[in-house]
């Protein structure tokens, strides 16, 4: 694993009106590393992903990717540079087939990536390739969203609650897939509520609350941290 950070966030502030969704968040992520981002609802995890991916522009702070400042780049430009994300609530192109969803990402990708059939196999949707994406259930739509993101050849993948709705056996398989992606050199920022799932993937976790980072380390240490306990247990 390289120790030169691929992604660096410096004191990011994102406001919605008077509400500070992100309040000076800083983090870094290296190629092949998995970083977990956890916290209660409304703590700013998804907003953080949205800022990195170019969906939101922060009021303050900077985002660096490969050493380049990319704070105001669009989603499209980010995708072309190698930053992609999955959505908490995926919205695949429902009138298109599963394969066509990936063909679109492939057509507009500017980076090398796995062949589409391999990606379909990787997410277990080969049997559904000719079906309309709108006919998939929500878990399958999340997998399609992951395959779509991978079809753009990302070197940084932002995953937003991919595990929600998966059964234990599917969770194990998903964890293996994410580990495999990280081993291939992709840096992964993982937003997740399922702490056991995150624990099986990484020992580096950032706990957020009210837009701020309140802890960084492994989950066992987080469980002993009074501030984290107060946030999760109201103590």
């Amino acid at each position, binding site marked *: 694993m390289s120790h030169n950070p691929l992604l660096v966030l410096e004191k990011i502030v994102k406001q919605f009106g008077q509400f500070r969704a992100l309040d000076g968040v800083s983090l870094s992520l290296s190629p092949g590393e998995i970083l977990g981002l956890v916290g209660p609802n409304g703590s700013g995890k998804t907003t953080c992903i949205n800022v990195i*991916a170019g*969906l939101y522009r922060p009021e303050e702070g900077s985002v660096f990717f490969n050493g380049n400042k990319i704070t105001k780049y*669009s*989603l*499209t430009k980010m*995708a*072309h540079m190698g930053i*992609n*994300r999955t*959505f908490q609530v*995926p*919205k*695949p*192109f*429902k*009138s*298109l087939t599963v394969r*066509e969803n990936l*063909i*679109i*990402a492939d*057509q*507009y*990708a*500017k980076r090398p990536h796995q062949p589409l059939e391999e990606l379909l196999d990787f997410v277990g949707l080969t049997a559904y390739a000719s079906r309309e994406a*709108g006919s998939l259930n929500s878990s399958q739509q999340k997998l399609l*969203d992951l395959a*779509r*993101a991978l*079809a*753009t050849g990302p070197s940084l993948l932002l995953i937003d609650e991919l595990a929600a709705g998966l059964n234990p056996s599917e969770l194990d398989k998903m964890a293996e897939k994410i580990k495999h992606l990280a081993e291939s050199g992709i840096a992964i920022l993982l937003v997740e509520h399922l702490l056991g799932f995150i624990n099986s993937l990484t020992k580096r976790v950032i706990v957020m609350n009210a837009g701020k980072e309140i802890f960084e380390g492994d989950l066992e240490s987080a469980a002993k941290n009074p501030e984290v306990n107060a946030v999760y247990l109201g103590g």
Partner: protein
Amino acid sequence: MLVYTVISGILFGLFCSLMGIGLNLIFGVMRFVNLAHGDFLMLGAFGAYFAYTLYGISPAISVVINMIVMIVIGALIYYAFVPRLLRSRDPEMLSLIFFFGISQVIEALSVIFFTNNPRSIDWSALGTANYQLFGQSFQESWVVSALISVIAIVLVYFYLYHTKLGYATRAVMGSLDEAASSGINVHRVSAWAMGIGLALAAAAGALSPFFLGSITPNMGSDITTTSFSIIIIGSLGNPLGTVIGGLIYGLSSMFMQSYIPSWANLVPYLLLFLILLFKPSGLLGKVVRHA
């Protein structure tokens, strides 16, 4: 009488499909209701009128000229205004006001330059022959206009389902953010859709004198209302559903004109009322993207 009404309803319905399809394309891609749709159609009608009366250019040729000009104008309007609208807090409401303003400006300028006098193109401009369809006689202008409408609709289908730009357009219709995350330049695709949407309106405009009679600078708002009814019948956001909407509107309109002519002007409002009451998502309606 019945056979004549049905065939004329289909011919008129094909024209109506062309009349509405551009409005639906723009709505499908941008979730904006182009309240100036009828005014762009009116500009196309006057373009064809002046091309024919001043230079003898056939309205069939004007369809092509109108489309090329409007693609450019549509893209310019998009890049000049739409990205700013999208950055606002309520882009949909602001877009309504914006396009209403554009409609008023076009109408006012058109009154100044074209005057309020009704104009019409000689019905023989698209040919003087009479065609026999199922034993009924129809002017060549109607048949040719319907045929041009079919060609334009087939081209829209080809664009949406068999071109890279069309796939990207359908992706943007599905989800703006996912499309952008797939590497699609959403603004470029939307600018094309805006241009093509206006081009289709202007193409219908060139044919409108043959179906709607005389043209005036004030015709736009009625056409926008009718077009809106047509796309709601078919399904908002589904351009090809407009073909169904257009045919239903055309047939209903012709039946009313044949059997209860004094009520004919009520057709768009009546159909709008019925569809909103019984199938608000339109006849081909599925869940569409929410902005």
